[in-house]
């Protein structure tokens, strides 16, 4: 079987998806910097875990981790090296690519055994197939590329002791500030996303969007028009310059569906729209749409959802 190297950053859903996708291509060797990541690798079918002990690695930005990954990739010479398409995953992949003079593909949504990757270009308007022509297949896998499927096993564990080189200490992490995420799932990983747009009209009225999201167990998103108007924090923006989501269900309320926004959600499996304007472009891509006032439609839907639960 082909040897597949996978960087497992944590025990999150995205990491589980990458492991699931990797398993179908060959024997997975996971790289874990902590126990939670190592445990996830075992739960999702890794044959081997490189458990890296690198004291002080978290005091610095990506450089020391990149050094470890470069060394492991060089010695393992895998068929594939997969990482989650996060800021960190992409940064690490970029460092590996230059260090090993290797090809690099980002945000892939699928991979064939021969290394052909599927990617969405232009916000999903074009589906592209690409291949690396130099080295192994180095790719970052976008969130939602597959449904995570556990396959518990007992992987062989190899402890890798690494030290943080002074050259990799240049970018210090002076402080980590976690802003309360609340009980909702992370936007980029959520199975269900409920988003509000300009039609919500105010920050106060976004409470209705939150209620619908909570009733469905989903994350809250917002269009650029809504975040620019200050209705909802910018970090929840879905779209070209915000987060790209690909959930099972996307509910767009008071969102017209400008290309800017569609760029961030058009690969969602099921799309539902509520909008006053029957001509809103969002209806052209919705599996189910209600032309009406969201302040009438959503409360009624909420009541019905609670009844059916």
């Amino acid at each position, binding site marked *: 079987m082909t040897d597949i190297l996978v960087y497992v950053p944590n025990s999150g859903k995205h990491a589980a998806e990458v492991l699931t996708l990797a398993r179908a291509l060959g024997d997975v060797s996971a790289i874990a910097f902590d126990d939670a990541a190592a445990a996830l690798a075992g739960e999702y079918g890794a044959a081997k875990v490189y458990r890296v002990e690198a004291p002080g690695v978290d005091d610095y930005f990506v450089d020391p981790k990149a050094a470890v990954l470069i060394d492991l990739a060089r010695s393992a010479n895998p068929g594939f090296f997969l990482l989650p398409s996060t800021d960190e995953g992409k940064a690490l992949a970029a460092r590996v690519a230059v260090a090993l003079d290797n090809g690099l593909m980002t945000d892939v949504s699928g991979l064939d055994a021969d290394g052909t990757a599927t990617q969405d270009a232009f916000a999903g308007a074009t589906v592209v197939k690409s*291949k690396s022509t*130099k080295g192994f297949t180095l790719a970052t896998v976008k969130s939602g590329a597959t449904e995570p499927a556990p396959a518990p096993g007992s992987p062989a564990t190899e402890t890798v002791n690494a030290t943080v080189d002074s050259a990799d200490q240049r970018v210090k992490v*002076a402080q980590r500030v976690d802003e309360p995420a609340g009980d909702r799932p992370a936007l980029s990983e959520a199975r269900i996303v409920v988003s509000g747009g300009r039609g919500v009209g105010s920050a106060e009225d976004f409470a209705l969007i939150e209620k619908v999201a909570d009733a469905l167990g989903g994350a809250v998103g917002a269009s650029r028009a809504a975040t620019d108007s200050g209705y909802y924090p910018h970090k929840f923006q879905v779209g070209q310059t915000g987060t790209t989501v690909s959930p099972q269900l996307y509910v767009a309320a008071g969102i017209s569906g400008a290309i800017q926004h569609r760029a961030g959600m058009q690969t969602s499996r099921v799309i539902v729209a509520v909008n006053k304007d029957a001509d809103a472009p969002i209806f052209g*891509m919705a599996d189910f749409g209600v032309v009406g006032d969201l302040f009438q439609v959503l409360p009624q839907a909420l009541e019905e959802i609670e009844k059916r639960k």
Partner: protein
Amino acid sequence: MNIVVLVKQVPDSGLARQLDAQLRVDRNGANNVMGELDEYAVEAALQLKEAHGGEVTVLTLGPGQATETVRKTLAMGADKAVHVEDDAVGGSDALTTSAILAAALGRLEWDLVIAGAESTDSNMGVMPQLLAARTGAPALTGARKIDTDGTSVTVEHQRTNGYDVLTADLPAIVSVWDTINTPRYPSLKGIMAAKRKPVETLTLADLGVEAAGPGAAWNEVVDAAARPERTAGQIVTDEGQGGSALAGFLAAEKFI
């Protein structure tokens, strides 16, 4: 403090975009504009220059028409520009692009390189780290805030659920999100002044880069197809039952 800002002309994301017959980004049939995140990078550079002095140089790689994007940055207030333009560049991948930009950066004096967090055509978001690997300068990416005391740079690196405060000594490479500032509009005076600002045009030979384009790339696009259009499903008009109908659909799809 001398700052180089990386900008890239891209097809307008507000209009239809496609690949051409050679499976490259179609730049001829498109309305081309400055990358959406690039103007935030230019603004960040101008604000740092206003606080610390020095010069802002814009660096771009692209066909002749990218001059329009260069002129816009000069009109916003950048001092000069370097435009790498060579017919051999078309169809280059990110790794080749980073080699060309690194060579161009090698000819310039800089304390700080600022770029948008990603381009708004290929959206890879890897250029700052590729350049870090090639130039040896540290990269601090995805900033929502940037500050410098002249010898080091501090940024707030935006995460989904918070941020990290990162610091590094200069010279360094920083990329920024659109949360960082509100870009200025070029003034009429700025537009007039831009016409007299120096723009140096360089070829790959000038930079000592031997190979570019698809043949030199580390990756190849083997196929591309338009995603089948999503077809509209069932649309109902609310006459007092819209919410129930919506809940009914969600139940039928097993989301409730």
